């Protein structure tokens, strides 16, 4: 598990981002008609611009300076657009903020509608656009105030006639001056026209009527469940805002016209004339092709009529109901137009994608070939369009794989949307925890890993007829493996169509791998980017250990400030190798920013909280640029719009696996040319850009062409296990597209054998089969399997889940003293896995107590709540997997929900549906950043806006988990007895072994200094500063005790029963080798249980374990007590496990749980607990190199069996001499009397 984790995390994190990105794009697209263009550069104008300059600028690419000036003037052209965008941004912010300023007041909608989430549509009813109305009104207002002869009609409607129209500030007025002139003419004309309109237009229904007083009644009439619009929906909000405007428009018109009733013209009397028999009198109503069946005539009758007395002035009369109905109809007509335009826009956008021209080519190629490669760069539209092309060409059961989970969700949504759900539920996705797949699904987006898992059940993937592998150029482990599997499969399935989609990176490699498969190359949609090489001066390069020198980065910021006027929008994206580099640059850049007030500096990397990462997507205020300082997360997985400048350090930190030391190494490298181009391209997504490379052109030329694929640099344990489980006979000869190092394969096979997953003949063992089905690393999987034998599965599940997701501790968690002290009670001095367990259990308690404050609770402690949700899902999945494999033994009788609980769950379900609807319609909006946000203290605001999303998650969580039961279990976990803790540790070690470390003799056990440890393979490793023992080293202090006389051991050492070792989950080398997720364990007990070799002398006073540690006892009695117990325990354990797994193979038959197994399990648990609490005093030390040379007497030692070994013979009657060590092999792990 340790190895996969970081990369997994990266995907997970990054996918979150890409989802957000996608959602935003979706939102923008779907609201496109209603918002004015909001994208950072006005895309249209930029594109036109680009088209104009494209050819010329490419030709001049070498002449930077010239281009520079030209591009800056080009930006002037679009200045206007930027300003407009910024205004929109400001408006957005104002809506979400509650603070008041005069301007905001003007902008804000009447408060009672603020909860409706109303968008501001661009009105277009019967030919007038919102602008027309706006200006007409503005004009009227101006006239009213200037001439003040309007008869003093005070317009006071119940809805407080919105002043939103007049809200636009005066500068807009100026901008539109010439337009206003025109409007004036038109308004005059319009007025004269209106005077000729029939009565209904300026009806007797007073527009000063207080409609809002009758809101309840109107809701019942029109907006019931069967109504035209549903209360609470976004359209409902839209309508009321429409109504408001309409009302305001009408009342002003009324005021203008005074009490003059329009005269009917002669024409009216000649209704329905001419060939077409059209009514001559214009009525907007005639332009609308629908009618409402509510309210019924009967209902209408119950309302009174307008009388002459005027008593009804507050009453909802039938006339008023009808008037209301008319406005509603007008709205519906308007809404229809809007929605139709959306459809048209969608179609147009699809046709404008670069890939659209290749539609026929692609479809033809797929028809004619079994393997086709589509290569296209960012923005060409291949991921969304190619599946649609194939679907509409008649292919069905299409599967599309993605390296990232979130991409599956967003693509399925996007394709569903683009096809207008033409295929209904036929478009779905499937990822680790969720699926929308049904019987009807014909296009499925799924992760590479999941498709591999499906292979286990369906070896030729017969359920699919087309497989599209997207982003194959990213060369992830699973993707590479999938390529190999599919190449073999193509021979068995000649009906299968395979489409590989890739960026234009190393295409020949893929084409050659599939027998020269045809390649269709699609151009991307990138604007020209000017590249400038700015190598870092030697004096500023610094050495490895020093902090990164930020000066070169600041100089670029200065240059940008100098060269580009702040009215030209465009943000800066800086690529650095790692988190510490980022913090150096961020710190310096913030200083610079505070002097210039022209920058907002934001870090971006995967260990930031989701909210912190989200800031990178927000919008900066006018005249201020964002400076996003990022790891390579922004290279492919996260896409930020509006980036115009790139600074590329040319460095990346990559995880490599050192299989000798079993250690992950995070090392800094130069990037590849491919990756360098990718970084550059990030500047050209929304307009022409500039890329500063902080290295020389010759450096660039020396970069390797492509990045090292994952398969070359990660441990292959899980992959190999899966290969064997799939029945691949010779894993060493598997035809990978690029083979991994041979020793990497060998090491993994050895590891799998050691873990008991593979037999000596490299066949899958029952444990191996089980492990191959668990979606986690072998280490974690083993913990789970072992945990099932003992009745402690719940905490094991929690810990296994916690260790399989990214750490819930944010990077702030270890800097923020408030968070640290708030977290104190969660810390366990047994080790990090226990701290994680406590944190999770405490969180469950928070959830169970019904507080929606769990998010706040997390925030205060520097925890990321998202991780706990993930853990819960994972834990549930583990449990289900173990359960279906019959490994959980006697099932907990499923708890029945009480009727009260059922009721409340039903309520929650309803709320969930409502919230889902709500959040679907109002996906997250980009916020406006503040200039001085040095800390993250605008958290309250964040919470408010994220409220729905977090509520949604809360309800989803409560519905899919039995929180009451979870709470009960967490309560149990919180009161674990010492012996239970020891048992838990042993279970965890069953997976972790041999990941153990012994303390160095010279450790100080004080916080100020590093505590040094030694693993068997890697001496001198230290505790990671985020671990619990780094801050509490004293609990690791070795025990005091008498020392044994020299002649017994040859070395000093305290005699004690309390020696400890540290188990760890991973070994990670960054600037130092660190032990990650450590836990202290009783040394002797743990080692004896799991050691691969246990050698004793004849007296049984000296034990050598794994040829690494030496334990000595004061006398032979102590050893004679404990050794038989160990042998017994180990034998029983294996037997129980075998029986359990055998049982799991059998079909599920209820109540047939083998009583013998149950009995044996109980016995084992009891004996193990006894064993763990047994009091044996011993010394412990690590063997030195010289010790190891003289350790064994060798096979020539020729010792005769003495009477002492009689108790061993019960285990192994025919023990034989050990071939190399001398002495007798008692079991396959124990040698006696060497």
């Amino acid at each position, binding site marked *: 598990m340790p190895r996969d984790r970081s990369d997994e995390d990266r995907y997970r994190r990054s996918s979150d981002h890409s989802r957000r990105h996608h959602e935003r794009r979706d939102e923008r697209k779907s609201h496109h008609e209603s918002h004015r263009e909001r994208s950072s550069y006005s895309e249209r104008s930029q594109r036109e611009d680009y088209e104009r300059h494209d050819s010329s600028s490419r030709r001049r690419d070498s002449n930077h300076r010239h281009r520079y000036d030209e591009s800056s003037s080009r930006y002037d052209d679009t200045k206007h657009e930027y300003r407009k965008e910024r205004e929109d941004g400001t408006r957005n912010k104002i809506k979400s903020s509650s603070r008041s300023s005069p301007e905001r007041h003007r902008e804000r909608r009447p408060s009672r509608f603020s909860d409706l989430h109303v968008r501001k549509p661009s009105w277009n009813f019967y030919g007038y656009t919102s602008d027309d109305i706006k200006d007409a009104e503005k004009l009227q207002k101006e006239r009213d105030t200037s001439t003040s002869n309007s008869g003093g009609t005070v317009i006071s409607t119940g809805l407080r006639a919105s002043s939103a129209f007049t809200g636009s500030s005066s500068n807009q007025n100026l901008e539109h001056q010439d337009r206003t002139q025109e409007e004036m003419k038109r308004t005059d004309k319009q007025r004269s026209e209106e005077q000729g309109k029939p009565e209904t237009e300026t009806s007797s229904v007073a527009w000063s009527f207080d409609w809002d007083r009758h809101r309840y009644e109107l809701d019942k009439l029109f907006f019931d469940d069967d109504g035209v619009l549903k209360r609470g929906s976004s359209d409902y909000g839209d309508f009321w805002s429409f109504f408001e405007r309409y009302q305001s428009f009408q009342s002003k018109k009324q005021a203008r016209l005074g009490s003059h009733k329009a005269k009917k013209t002669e024409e009216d009397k000649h209704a329905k004339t001419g060939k077409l028999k059209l009514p001559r009198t214009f009525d907007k109503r005639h332009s609308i092709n629908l009618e409402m069946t509510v309210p019924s005539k009967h209902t209408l009758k119950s309302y009174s009529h307008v009388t002459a007395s005027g008593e009804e002035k507050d009453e909802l009369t039938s006339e008023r109901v009808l008037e209301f109905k008319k406005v509603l109809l007008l709205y519906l007509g308007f809404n229809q137009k809007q929605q139709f335009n959306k459809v048209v826009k969608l179609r147009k956008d699809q046709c404008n994608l670069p890939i659209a021209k290749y539609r026929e080519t692609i479809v033809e190629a797929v028809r004619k070939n079994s393997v086709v490669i589509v290569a296209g760069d960012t923005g060409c539209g291949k991921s969304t369009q190619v599946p649609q092309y194939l679907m509409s060409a008649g292919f069905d059961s299409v599967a599309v794989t993605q390296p990232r989970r979130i991409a599956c969700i967003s693509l399925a949504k996007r394709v569903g949307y683009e096809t207008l759900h033409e*295929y209904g539920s036929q478009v779905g996705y499937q990822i680790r925890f969720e699926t929308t797949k049904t019987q009807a699904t014909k296009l499925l987006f799924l992760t590479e890993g999941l498709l591999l898992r499906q292979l286990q059940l369906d070896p030729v993937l017969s359920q699919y007829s087309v497989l599209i592998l997207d982003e194959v150029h990213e060369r992830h482990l699973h993707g590479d493996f999938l390529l190999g599997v599919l190449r073999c499969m193509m021979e068995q399935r000649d009906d299968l169509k395979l489409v590989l989609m890739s960026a234009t990176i190393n295409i020949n490699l893929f084409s050659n791998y599939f027998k020269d498969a045809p390649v269709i190359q699609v151009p991307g949609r990138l604007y020209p980017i000017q590249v400038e090489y700015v190598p870092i001066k030697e004096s500023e390069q610094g050495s490895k250990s020093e902090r990164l020198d930020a000066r070169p980065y600041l100089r670029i910021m200065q240059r940008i400030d100098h060269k580009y006027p702040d009215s030209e929008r465009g943000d800066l994206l800086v690529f650095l190798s790692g988190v510490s580099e980022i913090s150096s640059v961020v710190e310096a850049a913030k200083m610079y920013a505070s002097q210039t007030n022209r920058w907002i500096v934001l870090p971006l990397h995967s260990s930031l909280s989701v909210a912190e990462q989200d800031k990178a997507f927000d919008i900066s205020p006018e005249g201020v640029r964002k400076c996003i300082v990022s790891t390579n997360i922004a290279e492919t997985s996260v896409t930020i719009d509006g980036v115009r400048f790139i600074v590329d350090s040319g460095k990346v930190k990559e995880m490599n696996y050192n299989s000798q030391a079993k250690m992950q190494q995070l090392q800094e490298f130069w990037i590849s040319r491919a990756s360098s181009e990718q970084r550059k391209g990030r500047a050209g997504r929304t307009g022409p850009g500039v890329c500063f490379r902080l290295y020389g052109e010759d450096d660039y030329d020396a970069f390797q062409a492509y990045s090292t694929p994952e398969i070359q640099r990660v441990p292959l344990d899980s992959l190999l296990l899966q290969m064997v489980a799939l029945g691949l006979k010779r894993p060493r000869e598997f035809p990978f597209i690029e083979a991994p190092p041979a020793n990497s394969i060998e090491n993994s096979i050895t590891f799998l054998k050691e873990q008991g997953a593979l037999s000596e003949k490299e066949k899958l063992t029952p444990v191996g089969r089980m492990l191959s089905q668990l979606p986690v690393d072998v280490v974690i999987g083993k913990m789970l399997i072992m945990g099932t034998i003992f009745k402690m599965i719940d905490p094991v599940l929690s810990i296994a889940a916690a260790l399989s997701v990214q750490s819930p501790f944010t990077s702030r968690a270890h800097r923020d003293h408030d968070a640290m002290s708030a977290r104190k009670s969660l810390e366990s001095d047994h080790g990090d896995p226990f701290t994680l367990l406590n944190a999770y259990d405490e969180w469950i308690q928070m959830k169970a107590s019904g507080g929606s404050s769990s998010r706040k609770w997390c925030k205060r402690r520097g925890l990321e709540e998202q991780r706990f949700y993930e853990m819960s899902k994972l834990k549930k999945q583990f449990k289900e997997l173990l359960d279906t494999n019959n490994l959980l033994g006697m099932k907990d009788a499923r708890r029945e929900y009480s009727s009260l609980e059922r009721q409340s769950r039903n309520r929650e379900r309803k709320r969930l549906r409502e919230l889902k609807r709500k959040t679907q319609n109002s996906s997250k909006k980009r916020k406006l950043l503040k200039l001085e946000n040095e800390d993250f203290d605008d958290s309250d605001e964040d919470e408010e806006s994220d409220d729905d999303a977090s509520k949604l998650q809360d309800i989803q969580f409560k519905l899919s988990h039995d929180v009451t039961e979870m709470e009960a279990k967490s309560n149990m976990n919180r009161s674990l007895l010492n012996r239970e803790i020891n048992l838990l540790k042993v279970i965890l070690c069953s997976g972790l072994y041999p990941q153990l470390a012994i303390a160095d003799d010279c450790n100080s056990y004080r916080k100020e200094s590093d505590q040094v440890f030694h693993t068997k393979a890697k001496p001198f490793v230290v505790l990671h500063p985020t671990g619990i023992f780094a801050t509490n080293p004293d609990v690791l202090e070795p025990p005091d005790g008498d020392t044994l006389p020299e002649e017994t051991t040859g070395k000093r050492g305290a005699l004690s029963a309390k020696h400890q070792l540290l188990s760890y989950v991973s070994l990670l080398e960054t600037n130092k080798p660190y032990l990650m997720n450590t836990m202290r364990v009783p040394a002797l007990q743990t080692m004896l249980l799991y050691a691969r070799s246990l050698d004793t002398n004849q007296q049984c006073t000296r034990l050598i374990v794994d040829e690494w540690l030496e334990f000595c006892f004061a006398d032979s009695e102590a050893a004679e007590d404990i050794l038989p117990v160990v042998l017994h325990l180990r034998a029983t354990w294996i037997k129980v496990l075998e029986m359990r797994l055998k049982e799991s193979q059998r079909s599920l038959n209820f109540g047939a749980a083998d009583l013998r197994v149950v009995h044996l399990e109980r016995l084992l648990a009891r004996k193990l607990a006894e064993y763990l609490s047994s009091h044996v005093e011993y010394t412990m030390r690590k063997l030195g190199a010289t010790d190891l040379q003289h350790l064994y007497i060798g096979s020539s030692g020729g010792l005769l069996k003495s009477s002492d070994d009689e108790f061993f013979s019960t285990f192994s009657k025919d023990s034989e001499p050990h071939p190399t060590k001398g002495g007798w092999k008692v079991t396959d792990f124990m040698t006696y009397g060497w």
Partner: protein
Amino acid sequence: MDAEKEGKRRSFECSSCQFSSPYDYFGKRPGFLKSIVLLEEAYVMKDPFTPENRHLTLGGHCSECNKPVCVGKDCSIFYTRRFCIDCVMENLEEFPKEVQQELNKKDKG
């Protein structure tokens, strides 16, 4: 729901522009709408942009020449019934001046 079972939905094509789209229903009373009836026989789909049960009129037949036309303003107008833009132009003077102005404005823009 039925449409989903059937697989691919039927498709409506405008005779005047290139627009085409699947539709769920043709007629005046889409079953999924509770309190709305249409005033023309129209090609209707469930509004794909909202989770509510709303409809979206894609087009209908010109009441004069019977050509299938989309509701886009360049292809048809609705004024008591649907007219394709050709038929409107032929009989422009029969339409109220508000409608004529609207069309003129379009031409200019």
